[in-house]
């Protein structure tokens, strides 16, 4: 039995991680981006100088997530099919463990995720990477006297999207829910930064061979929202010409959380709300045309569509008007009502781990 049970969804755009704590869980999240920093200080104290939290990663130092905007130097993401199990991916997972778990370290039952179409290759890559590190993950933060050490006692890799279904199928303790949520045919649509994953299940069962064709690479939020919005923003004025998709992403996340879509650069500010809403509808229509209608016959014969991921928050209202009574409403189910769409995979992974441990 491990000291901790953790699920880390280290996505192309955002890393979400949860740790089991009794019948509940702790969660953290940060953009999957880092930038090189020195972490040097003039010794003036926090009142008089800017202080950056950094991660000591071997002989390199990185700021993380939205902190990259403080330096904007060597900002780094790794998106695409080849990231799973690579050094950057390991960095994200290590940071997630470090932020969620106590400094003293310990053994971890770790669950991670990969896109369905890349699942088998990604699983192999991830297992290989951890084997190389002898299943030991170390990470050091600013202020730590020594690295935090975690031993991966058990590693499970799940397909993205299906992890989220685990959230609907199981309760907080990992026990199967006896209900009609997954009855009949269900389609799961996981909309992330880089990929869209879509899978169909029948009475809770899925065909592993269908995983191969379940991922649309390059059709995530970046292609359909961020790149297009950035292009529009750059034309707005000189102050915006040097912005990147990270800036748009930050503005979007802020807007979804607070309702404030102001994008500020230099002395200028743009309200992106109208542009975001317009593009979100277009994205929803693209998904409807190419995936829902094109592959899943307009959901005829399908009982419900489960929306997962960051893209879900952007398109679900529009898709509800296109497919009334088909979008599964999480708010109607107590055990899922409080789980944000971006956390569904991670929380589902946690519940699957609990189910496995109690079996």
């Amino acid at each position, binding site marked *: 039995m491990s000291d901790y049970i953790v699920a880390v969804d280290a996505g192309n755009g955002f890393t979400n991680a949860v740790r089991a704590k009794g019948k509940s869980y702790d969660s953290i999240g940060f953009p999957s981006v880092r930038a090189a920093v020195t972490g040097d200080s003039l010794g003036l104290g926090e009142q008089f100088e800017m202080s950056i939290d950094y991660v000591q990663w071997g002989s390199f130092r990185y700021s993380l997530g939205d902190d990259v905007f403080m330096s904007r130097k060597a900002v780094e993401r790794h998106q695409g099919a080849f990231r799973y199990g690579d050094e950057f991916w390991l960095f994200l997972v290590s940071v997630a463990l470090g932020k969620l778990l106590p400094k003293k370290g310990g053994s971890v039952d770790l669950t991670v995720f990969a896109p369905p179409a890349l699942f088998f290759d990604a699983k192999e890559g991830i297992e290989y990477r951890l084997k190389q590190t002898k299943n030991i993950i170390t990470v050091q933060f600013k202020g730590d006297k020594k690295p935090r050490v975690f031993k991966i006692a058990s590693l*499970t890799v*799940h*397909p993205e999207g*299906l992890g989220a*279904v*685990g959230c609907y*199928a*199981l309760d907080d303790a990992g026990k*199967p*829910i*006896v*209900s*009609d*949520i*997954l*009855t*009949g045919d269900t389609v799961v649509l996981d909309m992330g930064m880089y990929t869209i994953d879509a899978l169909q*299940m029948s*009475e*809770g*069962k*899925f065909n*592993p061979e269908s995983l191969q064709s379940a991922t649309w690479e390059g059709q995530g939020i970046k292609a359909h929202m961020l790149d297009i919005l950035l292009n529009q923003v750059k034309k707005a004025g000189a102050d915006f010409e040097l912005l990147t998709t990270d800036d748009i992403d930050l503005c979007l996340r802020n807007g979804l959380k607070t309702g404030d879509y102001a994008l500020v650069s230099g002395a200028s500010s743009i309200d992106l709300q109208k542009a975001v809403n317009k593009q979100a509808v277009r994205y929803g229509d693209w998904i409807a045309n190419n995936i829902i209608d094109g592959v899943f016959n307009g959901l005829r014969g399908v*009982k419900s569509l489960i929306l997962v991921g960051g893209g879900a928050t952007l398109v679900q209202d529009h898709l509800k008007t296109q497919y009334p009574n088909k979008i599964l409403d999480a708010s109607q189910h107590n055990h899922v009502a409080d789980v944000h769409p971006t956390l569904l995979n991670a929380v589902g992974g946690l519940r*699957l781990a609990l*189910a*496995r441990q109690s079996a």
Partner: protein
Amino acid sequence: MSQKSPHRNRFNFWLNLDKPDEEKIADTIEHLKTERSFTKTIRDGIRLIVDLRKGNTEVLFELFPDLESRLGGSSGSSGDDDSDIKREIDNLKQLIISQTTNSNTHIMSEQPKPSGLQSLGGVKQLNAPQFDKPSYDDDEDDDLGLVVTKAVSDGQASLNFLASMNALQQ
């Protein structure tokens, strides 16, 4: 002074486009709509059918005045002399028989030939056994007792999912 809005009722009906006859009707409706005569055609059609079923030809001759003179009949009602009605029906039959048709409709003449062969405007009918034409009346489907209810669940879907996920790890 404000005008009262008229009391209106709307009626819908289905056409099964998999059936050629109904597909033709759908095409005809599209054409009528371009001529802005769809609704009038529906109204006239219903009036006509109902009147004919009662044995009347009043609406028929109202809509097709030429037909009245060609048939030489009067717009009688069910209260008229039986002989007038019979003459009108005979005239109608003759009119239809005299027209060339390319349909598969079997038309009975007053005196069927002993051989069973009928001459039909140049088309010879095969000596085939008679059978009822297929009915395209959707109203009959209402008698099939197809009632939509909520699907029944055995509650096992979550367990099935768990088993599938475990199998993936093997």
